[in-house]
C-alpha cells in the first residue's frame, strides 16, 4: 500500500518515486501547494476507492499521516 501511495504522490507532484520518504510534506516538496493537495486527495480516492472527509483532508499533510489515515479507513470500511 505504501508503494501505491508513493506512486500516486510521484505522479501528482511530478517527481521520482525514490525522492518520496516518510517525512515528505509540503515543506520538502515545492510542488505541494493547495491546488496540488486537491489533486492528491482525488487521486488517492480514485486509487483506493475511498472518500476522505474534511478533517482527514486537512490532516493529510505528510506521507506518514497519509499512510495512517488510509490504513485506518480501509480497516473501518471493510
Amino acid at each position, binding site marked *: 500500500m505504501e508503494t501505491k501511495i508513493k*506512486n*500516486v504522490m510521484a505522479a501528482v507532484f511530478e517527481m521520482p518515486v525514490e525522492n518520496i520518504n516518510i517525512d515528505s510534506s509540503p515543506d520538502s516538496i515545492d510542488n505541494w501547494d493547495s*491546488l496540488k493537495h*486537491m489533486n492528491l486527495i*482525488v487521486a488517492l480516492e480514485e*486509487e483506493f476507492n475511498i472518500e476522505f472527509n474534511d478533517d482527514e483532508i486537512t490532516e493529510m499533510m505528510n506521507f506518514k499521516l497519509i499512510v495512517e489515515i488510509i490504513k485506518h479507513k480501509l480497516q473501518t470500511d471493510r
Partner: protein
Amino acid sequence: MKTLSYPEILKLNNELGKSVKVKPYRISVISNITIHQIKEIIECSLRIENINAIVEIGDYDNIIQDSTKVADSNAVIIFWELCNIVEGLNYKIEQFEEDQINEIAEKICLEIGLTLKNLESSSLVIVNNFSSVIFPYLCKTQSNFDNLANILNKHLSNVAPKNVKLIDVNKVLCQIGIHKSIDLRYYFSSKALYTIDFFKEYSRFVKPLIMSANGKSKKAIIFDCDNTLWKGILGEDGFENIDMSAHSKSGIIFHEIQSLALALNKQGILLGLCSKNNLSDIEEVIRNHPDMLIREEYITIKKINWTDKATNIRQIAKELNIGLDSIVFVDDSPFEINLIKEQLPEVKVLQVPEKLYEYPQMLRSNLGLFYNLSLTKEDLVKSQIYKQQSKREELKSCFSNVEEYLSSLELKIHVFEDDSSLIPRLAQMTQKTNQFNLTTQRYTETDIEIFVNSDTSKVFAWSVSDKFGDNGITGLCIIKLNDKNAEIDTFLMSCRIIGRNIEFSVMDFLIDHLNKIDIDSITAKYLQTAKNAQVADFYKKCSFKILHENEKESKFSLELKNYKNKNINYIKLENGNKN
C-alpha cells in the same frame, strides 16, 4: 481504449510530455471557478494522439482580463460557470425580482461580448453553454436560474463569431450524471465544482475540435459487409436471407448503421467496402437489394476479394491518396480487427459489438473522429471527385508516357487572389493537407481572414479542372510581403491534383505576379513531417537556391530575375477573380 484512472493519467501525461516532440499546441483555459485539474486530463488526451498539448490555466475568476492575454494561444477554452457569475447566485437568484435578473443578464451579456471581442483574432475559442441543471429546482420547469441560463445561451449563440465553438455542457453532465460530475466538498472552500470524471468526459467533447484543428480528423470509413452492413452471410445465407430491413428486429440495426454511414458521406467522409466475398454477389446487393441504402453512387472504393484485409486497406489508402491514420475500419470479426490492429496500427478499428443493439450507439459515440471544424462545398461533392480520380487512373494506363497523358486531360487552373468567399475552404485545406504541404502550418478561418485582409500578405488559391470534371479549390499559397522581399508562408495542394505539374504552372504565375508588384526576391521554407517527403525538392526544382539545410527544415531563396519559367503548354491558367 479503457478509461484511465486519474493517477494513471497524471503518470502517463508526465511521460508523454517528455516523449512527444512535435511543435507545442498551446491551450489556455480561462474560468470563473477553480478548474486546474482539467490541465493534465486534456493534455493527456491529446498527447496520446501525438499533439504536444500545453494547457495553461488562467487566474481564478478573471475571464475578461485573461482574455486580453491569451489571444495568441492555439486554442482558448472559456469555462464560464453560471453559479459563480455572482457570488452565491445559484441560491440567491430565486428571491430576486425580474429587473434584478435582467440587470445581471445584461451585465454578463456585455462581458461575453467584450471577451469574445478580445479573442476575435484567436484561432479557436471553445465556450461552454451556461447550465442550470447542477442546481435543480425539480418541481419548476422554469426557475429563475433556468431562465437566466436560457437568456445567456441565446445571447451566446447569437453573438458567437466563426472562431467560437460551443460545447453543450448539459450533454457532458448527462453522459455521466450530475452526482458523478460535481464534488461540493471543494466548492465551498475553493470554488472547485467539478470532479475528475467530469473533466474526463469534457475532454472527450473538446478533443474532436482540437484534432480537427491539427489536421487529424478521419477522412474515410471502410466497412466489412456480412454482419457489419447487414445481418447474415451473403455467400451462405443468400441474397434473399440477408437482413437490413427497417421492419425486422435485427435488420433495423443495420438499417440504422447504413443511415449513419450515409450521413457521414453527406459531410464528405468517403465510404468504402472491404469484404471477403465474390464481387458480383456484393454488386448485386448494392444494385438490387430493396433494403440496401448504401448504393453505388455513395461508395468511393470497393475491395471485394479474397486477399487479406491489411493488404486491401493499404491499397485503399494508396488509391485514395490518404494516410492510413485517416481511415476508420469497421468489421464484426475479431480476427480481422486484430489483424488490422497489429499490421496497421495507424488505422482506427471499430468492432461490431457482441450485443448487436449497442452497435449504432457505438458508431455514434465515435462520430467525433470525423469532426470537421469547417465544412465546405468541396466536402459535399467529395465522393464524386474521388470517383473521377479513378477514371483518370484508368485512362493513365492507356498512354505510354505521363506527359502524353497529361496533355490529353485538358487541364485548366483558375487562380483566385485574396478571395474572402473561399476562407472556410482555405482554412480547411491547411488543417487537412499533409502530403503536398511545404510547411504544414494549420490555420483557422480567423487566421486566413487576417491574411486575406492584410496589405502585407497575399493569399492565392486555385481550382483545377480537366475534361472529367472540376476538382474545386485544391491549392493554396500564402505569401508575406516585406518591402522588396516576399516570403512563402504556405504552399499546399490537395492530394487529388498531385502529379500533374500544376504546382509549376502556379509558380510561373506567382513569380510573374510578384514581379509586377516590384518584388525582387523570395524566401521559402520546407519543414519536414512524417508525410511530406515528396515535396522536399520542390523549391530546388523551381530554381530556388538552398540557404541552409538539415534533417528537419531547409531554407531557400530566389532572386526573381534568376527564375526559369516552366511554360507547361498543356495547362491553361486563368484569373479566377470576378473583376
